[in-house]
């Protein structure tokens, strides 16, 4: 308790990845995984490029959602002037620092438009007044311009916040914090609009007739669940390797667990609202999306998602004791990441496999490929700078933080 009044300082060496640590090999490991994934995708994908692109889209969305979530974490921390989260913010900054990678990874989607999106077919649009009506918006050129524009915006914002934060590690200038706080408010506004449109474009338009106004919020809630789960795993793993110099205590882990719990509930709230309203009004143009996910073996996945993404984790994470137990919380976070992947799969795949759930070896291959590259960029970022913002003005508040 008397530690309250003592300002602790962190040395760069205590919170950096030494070259002897296995963490420094993360980019290499990632590279290996990506190579394996690429080989696997090539081996299976040449025969069935429809499946290849759909598997790739799932993998892309899964990992980009973590990166988008990282950006959100950083924005909210600055927006709310939060003190407690400073010690873990650098990890979120590193996750967000992978955003430029997705600019590159978006390129294959440009080549797969024809396989992925029904509206990209000229003849389909010509014979369909609804699609013809939205062709001003849903056309390949504008779609790609938007997609790249969103990614450029997020990457630029991500890099700027990361660089500014790292610059503070050496200078300790409080004005940098002030600048980031100033920028966070308008950026949050842009973030909300772009993430919504990205969700509409990349996922909702897979079924070009279907629409749901809350869909952007649904995708957003998934991103946030994903980032908190990832953060918990990263924090616990790095702390186990003693790379966080005791900066992160169980109190911070507990708080991350609470946020994960809150967003598990938020996800369920949005998912239920969307489902219930469409079920209740029973308009065919809307119910079709759910009946595709209910009328055949997708029903099993739908139920699994409801149970695994809400009911089980809700009661699991409700317990304070579990949120303060590193092993159990890590299990919960890993489960949430897995079930988030199931969620993304469930959003995308029924378009390709209308007949029912289908597992393809290209699914894990695409995950390995995108995930491997993600780990390369993340690993390089983690190595490059301290794992904790060393001279953030609110660092001592964060270090002393305690739940009541």
């Amino acid at each position, binding site marked *: 308790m008397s530690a309250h009044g003592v300002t602790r300082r962190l040395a760069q060496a205590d919170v950096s990845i030494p070259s002897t640590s296995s963490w420094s090999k993360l980019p290499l490991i990632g590279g290996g995984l990506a190579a394996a994934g690429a080989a696997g995708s090539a081996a299976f994908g040449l025969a069935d490029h429809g499946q290849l692109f759909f598997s790739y889209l799932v993998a892309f969305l899964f990992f980009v959602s973590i990166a988008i979530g990282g950006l959100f974490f950083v924005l909210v921390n600055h927006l709310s002037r939060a*003190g*407690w989260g400073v010690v873990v913010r650098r990890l979120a900054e590193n996750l967000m620092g992978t955003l430029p990678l997705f600019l590159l990874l978006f390129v294959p989607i440009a080549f797969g438009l024809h396989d992925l999106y029904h509206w990209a077919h000229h003849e389909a649009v010509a014979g369909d007044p609804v699609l013809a009506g*939205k062709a001003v918006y849903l056309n390949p050129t504008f779609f790609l311009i938007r997609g790249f524009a969103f990614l450029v915006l997020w990457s630029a914002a991500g890099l700027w916040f990361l660089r500014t934060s790292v610059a503070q590690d050496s200078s300790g200038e409080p004005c940098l914090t002030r600048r980031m706080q100033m920028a966070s408010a308008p950026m949050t506004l842009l973030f909300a609009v772009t993430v919504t449109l990205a969700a509409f474009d990349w996922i909702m338009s897979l079924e070009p007739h279907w629409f749901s106004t809350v869909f952007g919020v649904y995708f957003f809630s998934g991103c946030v669940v994903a980032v908190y789960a990832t953060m918990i795993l990263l924090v616990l793993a790095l702390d186990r390797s003693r790379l966080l110099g005791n900066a992160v205590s169980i109190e911070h882990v507990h708080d991350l667990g609470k946020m994960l719990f809150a967003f598990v509930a938020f996800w369920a709230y949005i998912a239920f609202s969307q489902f219930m*309203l469409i079920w209740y009004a029973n308009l065919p143009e809307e119910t079709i999306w759910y009946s595709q996910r209910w009328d055949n073996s997708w029903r099993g996945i739908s139920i699994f998602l409801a149970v695994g993404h809400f009911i089980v984790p809700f009661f699991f994470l409700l317990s304070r004791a579990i949120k303060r137990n590193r092993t159990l919380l890590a299990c919960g976070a890993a489960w949430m990441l897995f079930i988030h992947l199931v969620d993304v799969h469930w959003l995308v795949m029924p378009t390709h496999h209308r007949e029912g759930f289908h597992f393809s070896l290209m699914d894990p291959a695409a995950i390995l490929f995108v995930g491997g590259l993600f780990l390369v960029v993340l690993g390089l970022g983690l190595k490059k700078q301290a794992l904790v913002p060393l001279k953030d003005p609110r660092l001592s508040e964060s270090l002393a933080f305690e739940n009541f």
Partner: protein
Amino acid sequence: MAQAVALDLDPIEARPQLIAGEQSFNAITEAVALPVEWKPPLGWWIALALSSSLLGLFGISIAYLFWEGTGIWGLNNPIFWAFDITNFVFWVGIGHAGTLISAILFLFRQKWRTSINRAAEAMTIFAVMCALSFPGIHVGRPWLPYYMFPIPNQMGMWPQFRSPLIWDFFAVSIYGTVSLLFWYVGLIPDLATIRDRAKTRVRQLAYGFFALGWRGSNRHWQNYERAYLILAGLATPLVLSVHSVVSFDFATAQLPGWHTTIFPPYFVAGAIFSGFAMVMTLMLICRVVFGLRHIIQPLHLDRMAKIMLLTGTIVGYAYGTEFFIAWYGQNDYELFAFVNRATGPYAWAYWTMVGCNVLSPQVFWFKKARTCIPLLFVISIFINIGMWFERFVIITTSLHRDFLPSSWDYFRPTFWDLSTFVGSFGLFLTMFCLFVRFLPMVAMAEVKAILPIANPHHHAPAKTH
């Protein structure tokens, strides 16, 4: 030692002390207990007289409604639902800020909330009372509202649980009950304070009865704090659910402009937005009238303005998304409903709504605006107006253009529509006047607990150990 003090302050914004003035527990007690113990000033009597006359108007309007029926309102064929439901949604929304401040900001450890949470919670309860009076009266037949309770009628029929209107009744009445419990739990220690300071036997007995014999026991505090935390944890999803369920009243229908999946979160954001505006309006008045400037400081107003900016912008986001999807869905009826909102006969109401709700809070991007008290007051009134219009626009514009063009019509409120609405403010304000007179309007125990001297490890700068 200096470092210990520094921890209480923020290095970036020099987070100011949340409570200005003399830093002692007794000073807080004195300041908060004063309005409960003094002879109220003339201003209070004038306010009470005005609000109770409005309450009288409310009573007369309801009595006449029961005598005559809903024909006294301006309802017509496609618009069977207008001011009654608009007022209901408006009042439920006002209540939401109280729960946000007392529960959600508590969970987010926002200590500044302690200056305003008591009054905001009181506001919640009074707003829910106003809200619930509308479902009670809106059919003009006071012997029928028991249909809302799970009681079978004379034919053995039960309430229709697949109807959102029943969900709504459950949601709002449980919301009122839980808010009352939450508020009362918070009041117990402060009622004990008033009891212990009582100069007359009547006051001692009256406050003593409701204080339940509270004696500040730490064994009690332990359970008490746990109860408070649980209540906050329950009130947070509850407040989200209440306005979501209100939005289901509309969104489960197939009417263009009502049936849209973003309604639940959008209604919640709008509710918090309107509630904060009302808290702002009332707090700006109270801090002046009751001399609480050192407890409700510009800092609190600044943060409330930020929340209004945030929620107002979320509401703007929802307006935009709805409009975009109305076009994107390529459904003629849906698109017509939205174009008609913006350009049809109710365009004046639509643009009032957009101007007040989306545009006016944008001035809060500037710190100067967030601390300029006259401007805060004006904008908070604008938002109150705008949020009432939001519900009016949603309800009336979607109804007045029926699927059958032959039944298109225009709703004009009558005197009794307006008098019922204005009268409901009488109920709200009368309750509020009584509240500030008889109950401590700032949560004393909670404010004391956030003073730097309340920390047992706080080192007073003057003393050395």
